[in-house]
């Protein structure tokens, strides 16, 4: 279970899949979600298996989420701002089939 050892300022609020999450100023989206006990951020594009934060430093691209409607953002690189709308990503995007 994740725990905060100290609070450094006025909490900032955002949503993840519609659920309200409280963050501390300076948190990245990935850190705030981890602190809130949310470990699954997306399902993988190949097998659809659940994925979460892995490296926290922008290397692994496992924490990809949709932020304010823009997909494939690295949750560990995006600072939380008040009112941010974050959504999990499900598998690969659908490929539109050409109509016959």
């Amino acid at each position, binding site marked *: 279970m994740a725990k905060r050892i100290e609070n450094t300022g006025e909490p900032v609020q955002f949503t993840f899949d519609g659920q309200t999450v409280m963050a501390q100023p300076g948190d990245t989206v990935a850190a705030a979600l981890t602190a809130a006990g949310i*470990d699954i951020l997306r399902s993988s594009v190949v097998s659809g298996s659940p994925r979460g934060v892995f490296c926290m430093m922008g290397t692994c691209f496992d924490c990809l989420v949709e932020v304010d409607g823009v997909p494939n953002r690295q949750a560990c690189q995006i600072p939380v701002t008040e009112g941010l709308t974050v959504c999990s990503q499900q598998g690969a995007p659908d490929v539109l089939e050409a109509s016959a």
Partner: protein
Amino acid sequence: MTQLSPMQPTKVDVAVIGAGPAGMAAAVTASKAGLSVALLDEGQSLGGQIYRNIEHGTPFRDGILGPDYVAGRSLAESLRASDVTYLPRTSVWNISTDNMLDLSRDGSSSQLIADKIIVATGAVERPSPMPGWTLAGVTTVGALQILLKASGVVQEDAVLVGSGPLMWLVAAQMISAGTPPKAIVETTPKGRMAQAMPHILKALKGHRYLTKGLSMMRQVRGAGVPIYNAATDIRINGHEIAESVTFVSKGKEHTIRSSHIALHQGVVPNQQVTRLLRCDHKWDASQHCFRPVLDGQGKTSVPDVYVAGDGAGIGGAKSAALMGRLVALAIAQEKGKAAPERVYRLQAALASDGAVRPFLEAMYAPAPQFVKPAKETIVCRCEEVTAGAIEDAVDLGAPGPNQVKSFLRSGMGPCQGRVCGLVVSSIIAERRKASMDETGYYRIRPPLKPIPLSELANFQPLEVAQK
């Protein structure tokens, strides 16, 4: 400050990529020598990963992270006091042969032309492929430390699996934070101490590091954290989220329940930029990684491109800062500026700081399980390619990582091979009985990080302080 016309790339004497110890030190030294310097960094604030969040530390967190972390603050202060143009949240996604850097920053794109480029992009964690390592709840040990440094977030009851100084440091910091790890599953194979002993005399010159290491281990043992030695056959179990880790230690199988498992096998140079620039690289058999070929002053095989810090080979934060200064002085001299400090003193300090390395490298070389993972183990996390599939592609005639990539898509996902690269090369080398130099590495191409087209369309000129 010069007036800029739209669509015109800004010019600078030196562009430094990465604001960790090497990048900060190089930028400050080059600026003091009279050169115009832009320091480009992807992060929100100065420090890189080792000094992450260094400018916003609290006394409580400083106490947990320790004096070697706090030491980074003076470097950040000297950077703030300098004439360096520091650009945070700036991702370098391409560098072309005319020394033009393409940048992505806050949703817009910019260009910068630099006479000299210092790559100070540091290290990444060596991958620890094992069954179950893609499950949610499994992170690197470095990730736990970043959560602590940047946000004061700790995981209770985490199990640390791996080896090396950083794992012990993080375990000790977790204890100081009041949330000791549930267990440490140590993967250093038996017999490593004997292999490391020939380097002990040299290592004693760096006794400060040895003492620190021993005191961290004592702290972890003293806190009553169970430690399992020479663990093999490690796998993480779970359905969606990690539930437990199973391994064999001293001939007995153990299973420890935890939904947070953190892995570590040491750190290796981040090669993305030097590979993009087609710098020559050589396999380092002691550090078990590729490193760019450099002259004594950090110069690569590509004109105007230099490397400082862990990206040149792993030496740690103190060495990184020393090397940053050395590289900046070499550039200053080349550009006809008087060196503000003595090069030989820096070289002596660098040699003394690195004395402990051969011992650590022999002791903590990656265990066989992570060099040649079992067939069913996923190696490329993005495209979910197994070790067995890579071996099969080799048997079908793929001679190196780039051919395996076109067979299987390994290294073609969003991380562009950052995580799996070294293991894919080592699996191919083992299978073909070829050397790592013969096998080579992924060809890295732009963009170094994916960027939306809208960002390319939104060009913003940069402002950089000129001299």
